[in-house]
């Protein structure tokens, strides 16, 4: 089968009525195949222009009966129906918190292999490249499957415009909720922050941040950069930041185009979570800190001297 006549469904993620940048990158990963952008719930009409610009041949607005937002299993059942309806050869999504959960559920239902958190994908060969051993190796995996399922690590494939027709389609699913799990509440974070996993730029504070309130210095810089703020394990363990901000082993895996580590020593476990970032900048007072041997650009200096200047010069 060549890529040209294969059908790919892309699960599009939306935020505040807009298509997430990371979803556009996932469409680019499927370039060359016939692309169906799948949108669960409202928002397809508003997303049409953007999706067509980035390669959607078809845009499918999927509606379902029942409370889809309260049941991840029902969501997966609905997506399975769409996969069967359009007979996709491949279905791709983002390896976000939501995407990883959705794909694992739907892969279990249709009993097909799933390659999670890929940095490269080849639809024609059904192969994908992903991290093994916490970023120390890349594995190329080949799957034998009727439907090739992959989630793509956010920001690992840069979105490229590829104008297509963007034909609007409607699909009404009639799926049953197995009734096993129910989301009863969603607690929003104190102040809405950019999602770390999907942020294009991240600025992280390590142990040298010294106190929780000093993260405001990084927040100010992040605002100028359009960045999310992360923390190292040392900073989380010291109580300076919540675990939701932790980058690295036992925290989040991120792959932004720019990663700025402020006062992070650079343990192997930290690199496990950010090694595939495109550009890594380190700012650290200790010129012998391990992070300087594994970054792209380094500034030796006190973060409390350097970061405010950086914020000003941006």
């Amino acid at each position, binding site marked *: 089968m060549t890529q040209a006549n294969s059908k790919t469904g892309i699960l599009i993620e939306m935020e505040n009525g807009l298509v997430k940048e990371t979803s556009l990158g996932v469409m680019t990963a499927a370039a060359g195949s016939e692309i169906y952008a799948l949108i669960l719930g409202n928002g397809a009409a508003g997303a049409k222009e953007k999706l067509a610009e980035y390669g959607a041949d078809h845009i499918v607005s999927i509606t379902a009966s029942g409370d889809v937002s309260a049941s991840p299993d029902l969501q997966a059942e609905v997506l399975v129906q769409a996969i069967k309806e359009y007979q996709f050869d491949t279905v791709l999504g983002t390896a976000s918190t939501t995407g990883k959960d959705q794909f694992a559920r739907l892969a*279990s239902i249709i009993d097909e*292999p799933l390659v999670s958190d890929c940095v490269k994908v080849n639809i024609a060969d059904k192969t994908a490249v992903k991290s093994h051993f916490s970023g120390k190796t890349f594995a190329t995996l080949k799957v034998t499957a009727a439907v090739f399922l992959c989630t793509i690590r956010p920001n690992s494939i840069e979105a490229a415009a590829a104008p297509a027709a963007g034909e609007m389609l409607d699909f009404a699913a009639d799926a049953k909720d197995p009734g096993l*799990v129910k*989301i009863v509440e*969603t607690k929003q974070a104190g102040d809405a922050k950019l999602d770390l996993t999907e942020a294009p730029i991240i600025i992280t504070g390590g142990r040298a941040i010294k106190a929780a309130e000093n993260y405001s210095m990084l927040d100010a810089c992040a605002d100028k950069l359009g960045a999310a703020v992360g923390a190292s394990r040392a900073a989380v363990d010291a109580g300076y930041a919540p675990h939701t901000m932790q980058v690295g082993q036992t925290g989040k895996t991120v792959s932004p185009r720019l990663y700025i580590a402020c006062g992070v020593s650079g343990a192997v476990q930290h690199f496990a979570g950010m090694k595939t970032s495109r550009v890594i900048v380190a700012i650290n007072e200790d010129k012998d800190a391990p992070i300087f041997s594994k970054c792209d650009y*380094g500034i030796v200096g006190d973060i409390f001297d350097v970061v405010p200047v950086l914020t000003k010069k941006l």
Partner: protein
Amino acid sequence: MKIFVCVKHVPDTAATIKVAGAVGFEDGDLKFIANPYDEYGIEEAVRLIEKQGGEVVILTVGKPEAVSTIRGAMAMGADRAILVTTNCQLLDSDLTAKALKAAMDKDGPGDMIFTGKGSVDTESFQTQYRLAKALGLAVVNEVSTLAIEGDKAIAQRESGGGAKQVIEMGLPCVIGATKGLNEPRYPKFPDIMKAKKKELKEIGLSDLGIDVAQGRVTIENLEPVPERSGAKMLEGSVGDQVIELVRILKEDEKVL
């Protein structure tokens, strides 16, 4: 209450992985540990049993050397263990889930099942979902808070951007544990000694009717990720360094 905890024997996260051949790695001298996320599952299970009574059964699919990891889990308080042995270095998630289910069927059903949110070797993040599907049970992954109330479990998981979902499900259920759920204990010497005498059953993967050749995911290539080296260290006053950095990020790297 009977709780299964699925524990994977994985290379130490601090260890260097040496690729051997096209698709394997040298594991002879490599230090192995319990998958870090699974430890949160072990701790949670042991705490539940300490409160409510019952037993914690460790279930591992791995090479015979995984016994060391299992003994560590027993030293944390698990009562007994089942090791499904295979010589496969990186068994795929689907076969692993099938092996776990078959071992559970043989041992008798559990009231709860814990796994880690994922394993740090293959990073596939799906075995718990496949296991839950095969057992017809509820599954919630990346759980950082858990409460058991009667025959109901209430779990919290992060849903992106720091927001948290509160999810209810009936028991039995499958919980994928992550950091925040608890602080795993360090076993004391007497517990380590006691663990050596606890029951450990071994079953071959093929004795459970599972054929590795049926795997639908094949590793075609495994290669080290090149390490960065020779970072460009900026020089001059703080102001000069920052100006040069911003210029590089804008003009050379085009990331700003």
